């Protein structure tokens, strides 16, 4: 699963830093970008693909907010989170999927953010525990360790090179190992391939 990319648009340094600290503790979170001015905000939103956007609506002065977001096709539009109290949200022109207020207590706030991140990262509880490799993946890993290219593996196993790449991505995600030599070490440690079969 690719990591979440998050934008925080808020003038207050104090609040930005606090949010960053909380968000950075989640393994699902990748890139966190902060901005404290509207101009940079608009260009960031246009250039990047954020999944979650924390926004203080008082931040937007020029009324360009809606025109900025109309340009983004809907599946790519980030989940909007207002940095705003419940009362102010009723008056807000922007429709937020969720709000976080300044006065919320710790456990309430953390729960909200956790839910948000789990939802946005496409987390499915039943997938938990499937970090074990499938037999197919083990077989592909074996061939990677033996030094075959994606194309060669595809030919040997009668699948397309593209499918091999997809399997490789899944293997890397499950194991947390990216390089070929790292994967080889894993394969040997787990007796998927014998040490005498390969030269490292």
């Amino acid at each position, binding site marked *: 699963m690719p990591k979440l990319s998050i934008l925080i648009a808020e003038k207050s340094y104090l609040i930005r830093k606090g949010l960053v600290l909380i968000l950075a503790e989640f393994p699902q979170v990748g890139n966190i970008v*902060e901005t404290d001015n509207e101009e940079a905000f608009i260009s960031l939103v246009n250039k990047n693909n954020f999944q979650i956007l924390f926004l203080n609506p008082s931040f937007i002065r020029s009324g360009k907010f809606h025109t900025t977001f109309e340009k983004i096709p809907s599946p790519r539009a980030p989940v909007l989170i207002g940095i705003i109290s419940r009362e102010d949200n009723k008056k807000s022109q922007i429709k937020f999927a969720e709000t976080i207020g300044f006065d919320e207590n710790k456990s309430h706030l953390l729960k909200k953010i956790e839910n948000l991140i789990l939802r946005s990262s496409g987390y499915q509880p039943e997938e938990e525990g499937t970090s074990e490799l499938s037999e197919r993946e083990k077989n592909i890993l074996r061939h990677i360790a033996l030094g075959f290219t994606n194309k060669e593996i595809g030919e040997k196993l009668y699948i397309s090179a593209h499918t091999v790449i997809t399997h490789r991505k899944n293997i890397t995600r499950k*194991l*947390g*190992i990216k390089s070929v*030599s*790292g994967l080889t*070490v894993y394969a040997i440690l787990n007796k998927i391939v014998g040490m005498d079969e390969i030269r*490292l």
Partner: protein
Amino acid sequence: MIIRQDNKMADLIHMNYLLISVINRFGIDLGFRDKTVFEVCREHHIDVRFFLEIVNAFHDKDYFPDEDLQDFSIRLIVDYLAKTHRYYLDEKIPEIEQLIDEMVNTCFNQTDNLNMLQKFFKEYKEELAHHTKREDEVVFPYAIHVEKAFTRGKADPDLKNQMNGYSITDYINEHDNIEEKLFDLKNIIIKYLPPPKNRALCNKVLSELFNLEKDMNDHSRIEEKVLVPKVIVMEKQLRKQDN
């Protein structure tokens, strides 16, 4: 916190002990008594603004240099970065290598696995050496070349040629994959290696790997936030004159 010239040098280290390796690269040793950053830099003939730029960029990953603080020469930055490369290759890597060797020599319950780890680390070392060599021999001289032309106000034909095929931004793009193996190695030890007999040694290797990774990330950030933007501005200016 933003580090300033009237801060006590000792307080810097209390705040972030990883800065020890940074000040060492500047040729500064411990034992500064109550001297301030300004005083220590003066003693060592170090440009204090440059020093502050580096320690701040290293300490705070969101630190963004003020433009008026950026008027020191590219040569200074490049010298510092090259010194950092030497620090990795001549000090840090051999240190970790020695720990891993020790692990191989003292743990008899899984000699094969540890031999494999040792080889893996050697591979990483070679990759790192290759990467830093390219920066030392191609990227840094290029940056200095650009600065020279910029000060002179004109690019010589040689540099024009180079600028046609290469820009410092390409260098940012080349920059990723080097951390991959380090990341893998950490995960192999944390998740997959059967626990070696000598637990203390294994923990030490792991914490050294974490420190190295952190140091390298901070190092890359200095390259990307301090060096690259300066060169981009100069490249632009030089290209403009051409047209």
